[in-house]
């Protein structure tokens, strides 16, 4: 679904010419008949009229269905009177849409609007000031991620980015508050100076976020610090934002540096940019009611604005249909206002100010407000942590699944299994039996994320087990060190996992070392003939005595089965034939540097692949020299 299509589609809707003409005709008719209409929209201030009094019963507000047209508040020493103008409900919607919007009629009256408001399910907030005492320290995780995010060196500045709907987090430090907002792939931040409750917006800069992948720049989603699921749609997307911390690109701005350099320990609190943090329980609401009802109010014409900056600035709100009630408590003062939203778009606001001994009351209400905010924050933190934990678990499960799939793929039928010590590069093969044992061991490991950096520390005690096809088109390997494994494939990056097997390396090595083949030549006797050649150029018979010496020497070393010969180019090649009534086999020994491989050909085998079997190799730097010496003799 593309939201831009909405605009394209909607723009095709037009008012018909007939309708336009009808409107103009109607306007012309009314122009000739109707007199101008007086409204109360200009009456924005305190109104000192007294209207007919009838108590406005609690819950009546919820029942108002037609447009309430106007209201006024008047204060007496002990209370207030109020008149709410109300239209009679119209039975016909079309007549109501004209007349209802235009006329102010039937009065709806209350002699105590504050009590009326308190009778409703009002809400509470204390967002009127930034230093009202509620703080919530950042968790070490949040702190670390914020620093990580802001310290990333690369950013691209962008201009005129609409940050409407962005979500983010506010920080308060000294006389500044900072806002970091996130929307799509853009992160923005702002710094505001707070002076006497007023904020002066400083620069608001947006930055696109990108990551470098093998030289190409790719736009990614930005990291988020704390995002309310309620304000940004898809929870999965949010989690992605929360969990991913990409490197950013381009310049570092001064204001950003200021944030980065600011000791995060000095950040006194944060305020999530989300709603519904001010939910209060009915018990709390009743408690607030009891505090307010006990107040003795003395009406005053106005309140010095400076008083608004006092510590306890809290607001009780109630909103219903076209009416909004607001009760502000600040310092030792209280203001009560009713705003009426006219059908024609105008607003009429009536505010009364009172002096009252609100100190105890304000403190109690503030505590309730703070508790509700904290609850909201905690609820959202818990929700996010829960989601993050689920995402982490899902991600881990996916990684584990991939790892197990990779191990399974490594042991596929077309794969040759081999191994070599980490740091070496020449493979040794394994027998079918060990292959099965390895598979059984590796595919049943229980794994969790590991630390690949520990590989280098344990490099001497690390072994690589690999699987590859003959043409090397597919290859997978597992590096085993301690109780950790690193899985490497051509398709994905190295994945490191910790296993539940403390002696994994030792056990795997025992399996692999168990493949060593001593007394290789012992079963072969007596050899009928033996020759050696060097790169196929010359061929020379080997005396039987020499051959026996070679056999003894070979028996001193461990031999490992291999799946292929390896390179035999430039290798010393010894052929030993065993041909008698029992067998007709040729043993090929290749000597090259410190690598010796032995292959056995069964000359009686029918199929080619059966002729070449039982390949072994051995590593010993001196062995080649020993053999050469023996042969030269």
């Amino acid at each position: 679904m593309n939201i831009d299509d909405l605009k394209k589609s909607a723009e095709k809707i037009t008012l018909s010419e007939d309708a336009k003409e009808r409107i103009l005709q109607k306007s012309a008719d009314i122009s000739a008949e109707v007199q101008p209409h007086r409204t109360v929209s200009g009456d924005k201030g305190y109104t000192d009229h007294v209207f007919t009094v009838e108590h406005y019963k609690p819950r009546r507000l919820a029942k108002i269905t037609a447009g309430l047209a106007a209201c006024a508040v008047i204060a007496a020493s002990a209370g207030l009177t109020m008149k709410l103008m109300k239209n009679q409900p119209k039975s016909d919607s079309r007549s109501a849409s004209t007349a209802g919007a235009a006329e102010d009629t039937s009065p709806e009256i209350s002699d105590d609007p504050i009590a009326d408001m308190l009778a409703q399910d009002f809400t509470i907030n204390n967002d009127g000031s930034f230093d009202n005492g509620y703080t919530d320290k950042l968790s070490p995780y949040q702190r670390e991620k914020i620093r990580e995010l802001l310290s990333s060196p690369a950013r691209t500045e962008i201009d005129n980015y609409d940050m409407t709907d962005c979500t983010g987090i506010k920080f308060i430090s000294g006389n500044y508050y900072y806002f970091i907002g996130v929307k799509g792939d853009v992160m923005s931040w702002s710094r505001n100076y707070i002076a006497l409750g007023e904020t002066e917006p400083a620069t608001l800069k947006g930055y696109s976020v990108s990551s470098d992948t093998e030289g190409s720049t790719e736009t990614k989603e930005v990291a988020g610090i704390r995002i309310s699921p309620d304000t940004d749609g898809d929870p999965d997307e949010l989690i992605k934002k929360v969990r991913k911390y990409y490197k950013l690109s381009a310049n570092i701005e001064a204001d950003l540096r200021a944030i980065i350099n600011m000791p995060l320990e000095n950040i006194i609190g944060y305020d999530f940019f989300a709603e519904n943090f001010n939910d209060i329980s009915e018990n709390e609401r009743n408690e607030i009611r009891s505090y307010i009802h006990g107040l003795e109010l003395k009406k005053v014409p106005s309140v010095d604005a400076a008083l608004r900056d006092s510590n306890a600035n809290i607001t009780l709100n109630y909103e219903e249909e076209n009416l909004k009630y607001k009760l502000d408590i600040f310092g030792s003062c209280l203001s009560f206002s009713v705003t009426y939203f006219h059908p024609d778009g105008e607003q009429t606001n009536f505010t009364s100010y009172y002096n009252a001994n609100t100190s105890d009351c304000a403190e109690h209400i503030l505590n309730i407000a703070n508790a509700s905010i904290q609850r909201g924050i905690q609820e959202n933190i818990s929700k996010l942590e829960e989601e993050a934990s689920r995402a982490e678990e899902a991600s881990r499960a996916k990684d584990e699944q991939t790892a197990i799939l990779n191990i399974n793929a490594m042991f596929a039928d077309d794969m040759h299994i081999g191994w070599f010590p980490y740091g070496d590069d020449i493979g040794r093969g394994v027998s079918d039996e060990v292959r099965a044992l390895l598979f059984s061991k590796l595919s049943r490991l229980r794994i969790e994320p590991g630390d690949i950096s520990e590989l280098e520390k344990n490099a001497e005690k690390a072994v690589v087990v690999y699987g590859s096809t003959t043409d090397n088109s597919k290859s997978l390997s597992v590096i085993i060190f301690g109780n950790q494994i690193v899985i490497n494939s051509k398709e994905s990056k190295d994945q490191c996992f910790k296993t539940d097997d403390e002696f994994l390396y030792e056990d795997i090595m025992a399996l692999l070392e168990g493949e060593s083949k001593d007394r290789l030549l012992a079963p072969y006797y007596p050899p009928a003939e033996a020759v050696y050649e060097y790169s196929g150029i010359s061929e020379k018979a080997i005396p039987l005595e020499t051959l026996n010496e070679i056999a003894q020497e070979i028996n001193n070393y461990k031999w490992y089965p291999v799946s292929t010969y390896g390179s035999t180019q430039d290798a010393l090649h010894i052929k030993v034939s065993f041909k008698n009534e029992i067998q007709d086999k040729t043993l090929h020994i290749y000597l090259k540097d410190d690598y010796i491989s032995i292959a056995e050909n069964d000359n009686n085998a029918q199929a080619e692949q059966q002729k070449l079997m039982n390949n072994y190799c051995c590593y010993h730097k001196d062995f080649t020299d020993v053999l050469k010496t023996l042969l030269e003799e």
Partner: protein
Amino acid sequence: MQNTDCVREAVEEYGDMLYRICLVMLRNKADAEDAVQDTFIRYMQKAPAFSSDGHEKAWLIKVASNICRDILKLRSRTTELDEETLNTIAAADSGSNILEALMQIPDKFRIVLTLHYIEGYKTDEIAEMIGKTSSAVKMRLAKGRKLLEEKYRKEYM
């Protein structure tokens, strides 16, 4: 009172835009036309002074949405989309169905989505128009988008 020439000019300038908003809110062609008519009558009668074209447009939207809201309040039940309105929406959608999906979600979300995504107003401007707080508008936008997405996926994909 505004003279009829001014009204004609306003109808030409803003008639389509107001009709779109009213149609989305009321889901009924006849009611939408009446709401637009009532808006221009209010415009003529009140003859407000505007500081700019933007101010005039915002005033008209505010009045139209209030009139729509009054009509909605007086409806005893949610009205189904009639065939004529459906045809209008379908013709405008030209296969994308997104407008039709929009018409299926609750009206309080329809209006903010319309003002934001169709008319291009920012949340604080919408808040001013519909008499809600900016954060309430943001909430409605976010939830409205989600509802629209769900409706669209469920019924049109």
